[in-house]
């Protein structure tokens, strides 16, 4: 600062004041908010559900090409049934195991708690395409994999169980985290109050905490439904690794889009059923996803949980003595065995499969290009989302307007829509529009923005909700313009949530296969590259594993750097 001449400093200050005055004008802030709403509706929400409009407009083609074609229909329906079966099972399994583990994580004090808390987040950094391969290696019978890793269990043959195991690995950390966060907000005094009334720990948790936890349960259910319905890359690699020919609906869309694009690239007319078929499948998936989510919410709110009766003696026995200890160890082991080991199993594979020859023959150009592309897409999408998602969150929480509530409900839609359907819809939207020149990279980025937008907004809303508006009120009345109040008072508190949202958005984007494939199969991002390696005619498992590990490293590095930055500043003050 001292080096800058004071006249510059003054100019800078003047500029700053003028800038603050400018943005504090009501007309400026209204324009800004209007722009954000416009952006959200036309470029995030509308493309996401564009396929619905397409389906209505082009119903005749769908009718003639799809509905009246029994082979195609049965292919679509079978894939859909598969998806539904997997995600419903997963949701139930997640809840059954998630509730007690989340409860232990929040309410119990034990030595490895903080370690466990951070370990749980690790699988989030693994791109699902690689994760699918890893899980399949651990559990599945893998006829095509040349080197069988040690310790691999190697016994699951069928597609359904392995898909369930795989999705469990991907959804469980999310479910646990969201359950724990919500559980943390339920006043522990209530449980203590119940215990002073003579309720055992188990009875207290069951009759007091659980009924208050309905919203948490609903959130967790939506989370695991949405995530398991969405996944494409993972499902593709899982199925390919065990050599199964089954398809989930996302895999179906991915494959068809591939075929379609290949045909166009080769200068041929693509098969007539492909486009309407994909549209039809996407519409069905969106409808099913929305229905399931709606159902889950109703179920969580209305379900009569068993708290009409108490069985003191049994519940005492579960709550006292060695039982709680056993339970903790059991859930800890469960987590390690079903989530952690399968997630990172491919690291073992790399060590076993490494050889100079393989490293020399690999296609390093494509490898580095794909990784670079992934990083660019994820970074741009995340930055755009932060810039636009944060004001959107402010709009929803702080502006007390009936419109805010509508926005609040709409923000989640891109999140619930399965990513393959979303990708297809966004792709369709951008190829149909005529304003922007077609650019595959741009389309992919837009698809990723739509897909990850809710993460930033949701997280920021969560952070804002925790900050009492009284701080901003005080700042305003002390003479701070709205933007100053935000910068000096709100941001320091909310930035943790924004960064958490950015991390989620980045990792989600860097690991996404389905949306990318459905928008533009030409854009070989890293996960697409991994899928191609595994599902190709001559699968290169080793290289796929290596790419995965590199992606993990990039994500973890980012998480680490952001976290470190945040905590370093936070420690001084928090």
């Amino acid at each position: 600062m001292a080096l800058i001449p004071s006249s510059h400093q003054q100019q800078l200050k003047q500029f700053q004041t003028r800038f603050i005055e400018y943005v504090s004008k009501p007309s400026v802030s209204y324009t800004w908010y209007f722009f954000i709403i416009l952006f959200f509706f036309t470029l995030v929400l509308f493309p996401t559900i564009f396929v619905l409009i397409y389906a209505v407009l082009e119903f005749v083609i769908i009718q003639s090409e799809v509905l009246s074609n029994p082979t195609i229909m049965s292919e679509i329906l079978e894939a859909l049934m598969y998806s539904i079966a997997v995600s419903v099972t997963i949701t139930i399994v997640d809840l059954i195991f998630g509730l007690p583990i989340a409860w232990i994580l929040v309410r119990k004090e034990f030595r490895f708690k903080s370690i466990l808390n951070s370990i749980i987040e690790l699988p989030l950094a693994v791109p699902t395409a690689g994760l699918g391969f890893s899980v399949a290696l651990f559990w599945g019978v893998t006829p095509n994999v040349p080197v069988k890793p040690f310790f691999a269990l190697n016994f699951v043959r069928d597609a359904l169980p392995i898909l369930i195991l795989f999705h469990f690995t991907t959804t469980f950390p999310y479910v646990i985290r969201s359950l724990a966060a919500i559980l943390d907000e339920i006043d522990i005094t209530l449980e203590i109050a119940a215990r002073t009334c003579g309720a055992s720990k188990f009875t207290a948790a069951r009759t007091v905490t659980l009924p208050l936890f309905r919203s948490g349960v609903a959130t967790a259910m939506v989370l695991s439904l949405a995530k398991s319905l969405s996944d494409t890359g993972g499902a593709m690699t899982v199925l390919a690794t065990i050599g199964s020919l089954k398809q989930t609906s996302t895999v179906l869309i991915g494959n068809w889009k591939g075929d379609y694009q290949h045909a166009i690239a080769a200068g041929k007319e693509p098969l007539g059923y492909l486009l309407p078929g994909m549209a039809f499948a996407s519409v069905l998936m969106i409808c099913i996803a929305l229905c399931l989510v709606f159902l889950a919410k109703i179920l969580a709110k209305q379900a009569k949980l068993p708290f009409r009766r108490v069985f003191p003696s049994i519940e005492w026995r579960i709550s006292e003595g060695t039982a709680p200890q056993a339970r903790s160890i059991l859930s800890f082991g469960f987590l390690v065995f079903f989530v952690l080991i399968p997630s990172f199993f491919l690291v073992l594979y790399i060590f076993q499969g490494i050889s100079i020859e393989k490293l020399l023959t690999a296609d390093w150009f494509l490898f580095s290009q794909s990784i670079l592309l992934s990083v660019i897409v994820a970074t741009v999408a995340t930055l755009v989302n932060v810039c636009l998602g944060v004001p959107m969150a402010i709009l929803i929480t702080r502006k007390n307007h009936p419109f805010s509530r509508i926005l609040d409900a709409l923000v989640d839609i891109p999140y619930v829509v399965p990513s393959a359907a979303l990708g297809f819809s966004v792709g369709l939207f951008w190829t149909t529009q005529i304003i922007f020149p077609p650019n595959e990279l741009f389309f992919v980025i837009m698809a990723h923005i739509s897909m990850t937008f809710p993460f930033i907004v949701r997280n920021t809303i969560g952070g804002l909700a925790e900050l009492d508006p009284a701080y901003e009120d005080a700042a305003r009345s002390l003479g701070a313009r709205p933007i100053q109040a935000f910068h000096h008072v709100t941001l320091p508190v909310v930035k943790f949530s924004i960064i958490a949202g950015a991390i989620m958005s980045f990792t989600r984007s860097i690991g996404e296969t389905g949306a990318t494939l459905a928008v533009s199969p030409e854009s070989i991002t890293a996960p697409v590259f991994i899928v191609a390696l595994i599902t190709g005619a001559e699968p290169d498992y080793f290289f796929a594993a290596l790419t995965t590990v590199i992606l993990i490293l990039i994500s973890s590095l980012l998480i680490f750097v952001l976290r470190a930055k945040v905590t370093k500043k936070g420690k001084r003050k928090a």
Partner: protein
Amino acid sequence: MVKAHIEIQDLNKRFGKLYAIQDFNLEVERGEYVVILGPTGAGKTTLLKLIAGLVKPTSGKIYKNGELLNNIPPERRNMAYLPQTSDYSLFPYMDVWENTVFSPKMKGDKPWEEIIALGDEILDLVNLRTRYNAYPHELSGGMMQRVALARAMAADADIFLLDEPLRALDARLRIRLRTEIRKLVSDLEKTTFHVTHDQEEAIAVADRVLVINEGKIVQFDIPEEIYDYPSTLFAAYFFGTTNLVLATRARNENNGEVVQAGEHEITIKPKDIIRSFDKQESHSDEEIVLAVKAEKILVTPLIRTKPESQFKVNIFEGTVEQAFFLGKWANLAVQVEGLSKKELHVSIPSSDLHQYNVGTKVRLEIPSENINYFFEPWEVAKRLEMT
């Protein structure tokens, strides 16, 4: 003519169908210390926020020095608002110094050297200069309170809006700090609005008390006036320890009006012409509520033979049911056979407490000029007494 510092005209604020503030009209002089008193949900905080500009009124006008404030944003009103949070809304990521100079820094109209001098001066004033680099969570409740005041003073606002500034503190500390705050802002000649639900606090610091209930002004006056001459039953009940006795009008006599309270007759006296109820049409059996402050009932142990009092009226015999020691005062709950009220609460200096045990028979005397009365249905009194 000197304009009022703050003037409020026909102010209304509605949330949905509910009126949080209804038909407020008031004027406050420069330098006045006004306490806004009322139960939870009365609209106290909404009123402060309306004045601060943080909430837009549904209708009505607010003036400061005769200037209409309605379209001026909060940061331009030159008021300092202290919200009601346990940490006084000190900015958690700023230390004491940064909190203190927040306002001049934001306004950006002073050179930095001047801000530094101002900050130092104010921190000296609240005795916190040595803790300039502490963060709010490292301070005790009382210190946080002082930082919040310092921050408001540095804003150089001429109006202070304090929303329950003492709520988060211990009772004893509250007693000490309330006078300290009052002294500090009065020395600086700030006009202050102080919100509380504690009537003792209100009486202790206010120039004038604005009693509000359910979004309406109940009474706006100096504490003595509200205490001794409450204009409504609510004000009478809310101040001090008040016995509400349900009665019906019976007849007129030379020395006052006689009402029937259960089996007993009580004589009440109009205190002055305006408050006389001669103006009211008299019907017997009309419901009336008597309000008597606990310290305005005279009590003596019955065993002592005492010369017949000059008052022949309003003398009752009763039994002490419970005795509570409160420090300076003690409270007796006295049961009077046949009275419409089960127990009368009577305040006595605690030095007299040794004369009264549970079960002691006592003689109560309520001088008729100590009785306030209201032509309100009994229902109203019953609702007030329900917690």
